[in-house]
């Protein structure tokens, strides 16, 4: 079977499942629409920035929540940032966990915060994995001589 066709189908299916399972939302489409011949790597660049930012924030969050006297304002500020950046790239499930997380910060509920941290870490690693697979498929497709339609 034609490798290009096969890869195209894999890419389409994988992308569709990301939306279908709620990992990504319409905002991600917006990013794809901003990619063109003069900005061919736009999506990868923005998403890489998101990965860097998120990893930094998750580390900061873990540290802040380990303190004897937790600075909930600081924790909230980090979650606010994470919520913002995940929403900017359309990482819907990460964004969603940030909402109860902020509520627990306001209540100064350490257990709630720790639970949310686990959840947000989990959602982040899921979406990161899936996006990395998406980019790999795109690269394979291009290498095989195909191209993927930008919506």
């Amino acid at each position, binding site marked *: 079977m034609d490798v290009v066709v096969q890869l195209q189908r894999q890419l389409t299916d994988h992308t569709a499942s990301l939306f279908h399972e709620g990992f990504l939302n319409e*905002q991600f489409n*917006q*990013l794809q*629409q*901003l990619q*063109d011949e003069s*900005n061919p790597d*736009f999506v990868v*660049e*923005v998403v890489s*920035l*998101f990965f860097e*930012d998120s990893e930094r924030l998750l580390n900061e969050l873990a540290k802040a929540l380990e303190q004897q006297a937790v600075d909930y304002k600081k924790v909230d500020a980090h979650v*606010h*940032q994470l*919520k*913002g*950046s995940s*929403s*900017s*790239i*359309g990482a819907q499930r990460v964004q969603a966990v940030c909402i109860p997380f902020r509520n627990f910060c306001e209540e100064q509920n350490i257990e709630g915060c720790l639970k949310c941290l686990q959840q947000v870490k989990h959602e982040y690693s899921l979406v990161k994995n899936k996006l990395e697979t998406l980019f790999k498929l795109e690269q394979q497709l291009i290498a095989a001589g195909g191209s993927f339609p930008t919506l």
Partner: protein
Amino acid sequence: MLEPPTKITALVVDDDTINQMIHHRLLDNLGIRNQVVRNGKEAIDVHCSGKNFDLILMDMEMPVMNGIEATRKLRAMGIRSMIAGVSTNTRERENFMKAGLDDYQEKPLTTSKLVSILHKVHKDG
């Protein structure tokens, strides 16, 4: 998909690098020459250096000087540019508008939100 370059210029004021990148690209894509600064103080400084813009996209929560204060200061300086607040903080929306905004959009910005802002930019600029 590229619009012919317009004469409209814009300033992006946002501390978040992801938003900076997206807003810059959104504007570029519409043929709008734009500059990016990281907080309200830098927005003031760039105006003090003599630059002027048709449109300012102002984030609200920023370090050093936030969007509400920056908007107030710019208006006090006599800046009549269109200032569109871009934020997620609905609680502060009214205060933000009162500071002197012409428009307010919820983040994340999209092409269509930006187009609706641009329709309000006065054409005789």
